[in-house]
């Protein structure tokens, strides 16, 4: 590109003056649009006006409903013109305006053919059905493509109607035209994706027939890898062979898609990865930046799990560390940090320091994560990395105050990383703390000015972070208190509230208070708390509001952290989406029989009660309440010649659990999932009876129906279907809670009801296995990263935290020793004695 282009000044005098659409007035344009009604039609002028309208819409100009509808009706006249461009612009304008004007029929157009069609009512759709079916199989490829893509858009509104066009889509899929193939495949998959058998058949057919379109190949690869994932198919499956064969396709796009699919498969062995890695290696030296980027990004992913598989590419990656595209360079360096030897660390760190200020925050987080992983691998290098991290912190703080706030997420990643280095490397504690303190001092200095520039949200987090520093560090406490005092006069309500709250807590100088309110914070779900408080204010009671009735937050922070993809999605933290459990709570609240059960305590992950590819697919979600459990059975009927009615799941408990209510699913048509519920009372007299096995049978009324029309017979017959047994275990009664500071929480609960017992786990061979078993058995949250067992150790301590049904905190400390099998000493603490007993009894 010529040098001039990047110099805006050179063009500025031309700037606005040369834009024919500058200063367009909506009302003036609409005024001009009156010539649409003139006879004869003046194509050139009309074309120009239509262009202006689209341009205005594109700039975000708002058209009122009446304006849009009027303009629309005037425009319909222009369809009579024989100027093709004018007619096409007309369709385009109407398409752009479709969502504003009333009664407008959406138009999809393609070359000279047009499908004027579709208002949201299905009746309308049926009217054009025959026309659509013909268009899908039209000999002109662009007509067929447009019809297929329009059908795909329509699936959202009327699945049932579009479903009837499957045969036509099938015919189109064997077209010679590459785009028609691709669009037909996409539509077919979309219509069949809930029917695993049909998807399998379709894959078989197309993988054998050999498609021409590279896009269609990419789509097939995605479908195949999704199916492999769902069926947990082994890598000897023909689907895997198909994906692997695509590595030899002549189109780069397909090759890359296949390599990426293989890399993303869980449980891939190094041998299976090798061919994918070697094509990615070739791409690393491509002249196309996008291909180099794609390759190195995927290799980075491989390096996380299988660093040794990527070592063969080290030389190619070395060439990329000076790439002018900094994203590519960063990814290459972080990959090398994972695969390279200890001796190359210093050099790579130096290289990346030279341009770290140029890369975007998204990639800075990638760098920090790579370093964090590196510290675990090469503990001796911690001083180099610590220096690097603190330089990253310091540079930005000094550079500009704004950056400190702008990059808050990435700063937090650095601080987290330093903290974890300290935790894992006792010898680095001193330097690490010194760096943190320095950061705090530097950061607190511009703190007051920060308020002026930062957004309120960032500032709130900053206040909380500050409180943590104050609570951790006695010598910083006075200056933190001064800053808090200043924040108490802030103009933002929430900032004031927070500052007042932290100020009061900090002034008490009590460790227990700091632990409860600053380090460990609230572990309840925020939307849940809001709902509970609202409920409380509606029905004022004598007794004070009980925090324990609030549902707990279900996603512990640490899980997100360990799992972050190298390229973190920065959009996530902005919205406070309701958790899975909040959604269930809402759904259950809609069933009148469940009123009075109190708040939902925990919802389990779905448990499959049927084999894959059976007539009916049933999975169960266990919802735990204070004294009851609700079993939600999500059933899907995969037979297109049956309609099920009054579907319920009968449950026979092995213990003294009492089934009190069945809520059947009224109807279960083909492939539309429905839910039936069973309400069970937990035994009151024996609080230690936490586990139980239920034998389950699905009962229903069958009505045969015509597979084509879905019309059911009048008469039906009762039938039943035996499901797999359902287990309720201790984990269903415990909700995970992350205690960022376990020791403080341990002291806070106290030893009043502490109990200790020793067990021998004879069948367990390694500490890792023991830790995994205990966590999944108790369903509690591992704290202080104690779920990771350091290599070559023969003893380990696991810290677990949770809340037992009814809202009692429970903490477990398990000391493990490896000898012949694993010996485990379990110490349990809780504010409630029965809870301690339940845990110990269930472990034994």
């Amino acid at each position: 590109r010529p040098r001039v282009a990047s110099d805006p000044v050179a063009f500025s005098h031309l700037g606005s003056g040369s834009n024919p659409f500058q200063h367009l007035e909506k009302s003036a344009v609409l005024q001009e649009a009156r010539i649409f009604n003139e006879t004869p039609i003046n194509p050139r002028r009309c074309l120009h006006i239509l262009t202006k309208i689209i341009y205005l819409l594109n700039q975000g100009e708002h058209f009122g409903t009446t304006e849009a509808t009027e303009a629309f009706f005037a425009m319909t006249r222009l369809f009579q013109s024989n100027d093709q461009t004018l007619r096409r612009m007309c369709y385009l304008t109407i398409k752009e305006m479709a969502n504003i004007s009333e009664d407008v029929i959406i138009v999809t157009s393609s070359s000279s053919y047009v499908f004027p069609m579709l208002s949201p009512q299905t009746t309308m759709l049926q009217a054009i059905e025959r026309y659509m079916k013909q268009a899908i199989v039209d000999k002109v490829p662009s007509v067929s493509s447009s019809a297929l893509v329009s059908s795909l858009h329509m699936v959202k509104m009327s699945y049932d109607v579009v479903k009837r066009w499957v045969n036509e889509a099938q015919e189109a899929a064997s077209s010679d035209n590459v785009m028609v193939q691709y669009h037909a495949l996409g539509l077919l998959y979309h219509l069949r994706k809930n029917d695993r058998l049909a998807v399998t058949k379709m894959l078989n057919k197309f993988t054998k027939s050999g498609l021409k379109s590279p896009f269609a190949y990419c789509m097939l690869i995605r479908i195949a890898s999704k199916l492999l994932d769902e069926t947990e198919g082994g890598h000897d499956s023909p689907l895997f062979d198909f994906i692997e064969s695509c590595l030899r396709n002549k189109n780069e796009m397909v090759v890359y898609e296949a390599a990426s699919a293989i890399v993303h498969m869980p449980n891939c062995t190094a041998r299976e990865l090798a061919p994918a890695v070697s094509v990615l290696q070739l791409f690393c030296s491509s002249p196309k930046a996008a291909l180099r980027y794609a390759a190195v990004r995927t290799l980075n992913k491989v390096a996380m799990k299988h660093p040794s598989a990527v070592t063969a590419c080290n030389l190619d990656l070395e060439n990329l560390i000076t790439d002018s595209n900094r994203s590519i360079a960063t990814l290459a360096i972080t990959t090398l940090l994972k695969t390279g030897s200890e001796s190359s660390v210093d050099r790579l760190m130096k290289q990346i320091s030279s341009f770290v200020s140029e890369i975007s925050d998204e990639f800075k987080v990638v760098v920090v994560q790579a370093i964090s992983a590196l510290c675990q691998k090469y503990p001796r290098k911690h001083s180099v990395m610590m220096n690097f991290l603190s330089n990253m912190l310091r540079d930005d703080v000094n550079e500009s105050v704004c950056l400190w706030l702008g990059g808050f997420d990435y700063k937090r990643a650095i601080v987290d990383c330093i903290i974890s280095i300290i935790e894992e490397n006792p010898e680095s504690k001193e330097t690490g703390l010194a760096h943190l303190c320095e950061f705090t001092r530097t950061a607190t200095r511009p703190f007051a000015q920060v308020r002026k520039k930062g957004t309120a949200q960032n500032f709130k987090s900053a206040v909380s972070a500050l409180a943590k520093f104050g609570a951790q560090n006695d010598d910083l406490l006075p200056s933190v208190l001064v800053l808090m005092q200043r924040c108490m006069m802030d103009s933002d309500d929430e900032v004031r509230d927070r500052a007042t709250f932290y100020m009061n807590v900090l002034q008490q100088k009590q460790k227990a208070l700091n632990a409860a309110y600053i380090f460990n914070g609230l572990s309840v779900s925020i939307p849940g708390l809001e709902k509970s408080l609202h409920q409380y204010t509606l029905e004022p009671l004598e007794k004070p509001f009980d925090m324990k009735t609030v549902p707990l937050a279900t996603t512990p922070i640490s899980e997100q952290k360990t799992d972050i993809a190298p390229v973190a999605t920065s959009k996530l933290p902005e919205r406070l989406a309701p958790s899975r459990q909040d959604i269930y709570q809402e759904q259950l609240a809609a069933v009148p029989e469940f009123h009075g059960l109190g708040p939902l305590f925990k919802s389990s992950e779905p448990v499959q009660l049927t084999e894959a590819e059976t007539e009916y697919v049933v999975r169960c979600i266990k919802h735990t309440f204070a004294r009851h459990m609700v079993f939600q059975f999500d059933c899907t009927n995969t037979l297109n010649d049956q309609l099920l009615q009054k579907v319920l799941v009968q449950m026979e408990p092995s213990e003294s659990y009492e089934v009190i209510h069945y809520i059947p699913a009224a109807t279960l048509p083909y492939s539309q999932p429905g839910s039936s519920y069973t309400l069970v009372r937990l035994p009151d007299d024996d609080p230690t009876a936490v586990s139980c096995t239920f034998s389950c049978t699905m009962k229903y009324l069958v009505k045969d129906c015509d597979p084509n029309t879905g019309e059911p017979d009048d008469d039906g017959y009762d039938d039943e279907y035996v499901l797999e047994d359902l287990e309720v275990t201790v984990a269903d009664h415990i909700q995970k809670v992350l205690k960022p500071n376990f020791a403080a929480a341990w002291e806070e609960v106290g030893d009043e009801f502490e109990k200790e017992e020793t067990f021998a786990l004879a069948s367990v061979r390694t500490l890792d296995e023991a830790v995994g078993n205990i966590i999944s058995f108790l369903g509690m949250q591992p704290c202080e990263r104690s779920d990771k067992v350091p290599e070559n150790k023969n003893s380990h301590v696991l810290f677990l935290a949770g809340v037992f049904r009814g809202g009692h905190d429970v903490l477990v400390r398990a000391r493990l020793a490896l000898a012949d099998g694993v010996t485990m000493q379990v110490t349990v603490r809780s504010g409630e004695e029965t809870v301690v007993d339940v845990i110990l009894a269930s472990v034994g």
Partner: protein
Amino acid sequence: MDSASLQPSLYTVKAVFILDNDGNRLLSKYYDPELYPSMKEQKNFERNVFNKTHKADNEIAFLEGLTIVYKGSIDLFFYVVGSAQENELMLMSVLNCLFDSLSHILRKNVERRCLLDNMDGVFLVVDEIIDGGVILESDPQQVLQKVNYRADENPLSEQSVAQHITEKLALTTNVLQSAKEQIKWSILK
């Protein structure tokens, strides 16, 4: 997390936009209603993308959790946006098709003024390449055939020819001017 977001689907393109070299929007289409639903969010996103990309012609960037492929030409910037998991080469094929088709209908004058003079053709081309986020066509020859639009269908009026020439002249003078300045400064150093 990754496998969940890689749902097999034809909806590949999240957004496409063309900006001038001040970062102003000339054309922009968002196909995912959940991505930046308001005009303000869209323009903020475009501003952010422009600031991070206009200085270096790097072809690909990752911003706000989205993969963005781009290309600059004189005083124009073309962007195609997809999800973080999208096949980067698919996005590139859309970008290349868009650029080549426009280059053809603008008779190789891929610059702001010429683009604005043929805005109707530009709208039609974009509509032929992407339909609601689905790649409809990726072969520029096919696109051109379907659009059947030629820039010289609109012969320039005398006035606009004159204007055009003045601008071209002004541009040249400006380039010369800035070159002179640069030489002067390099000597003074």
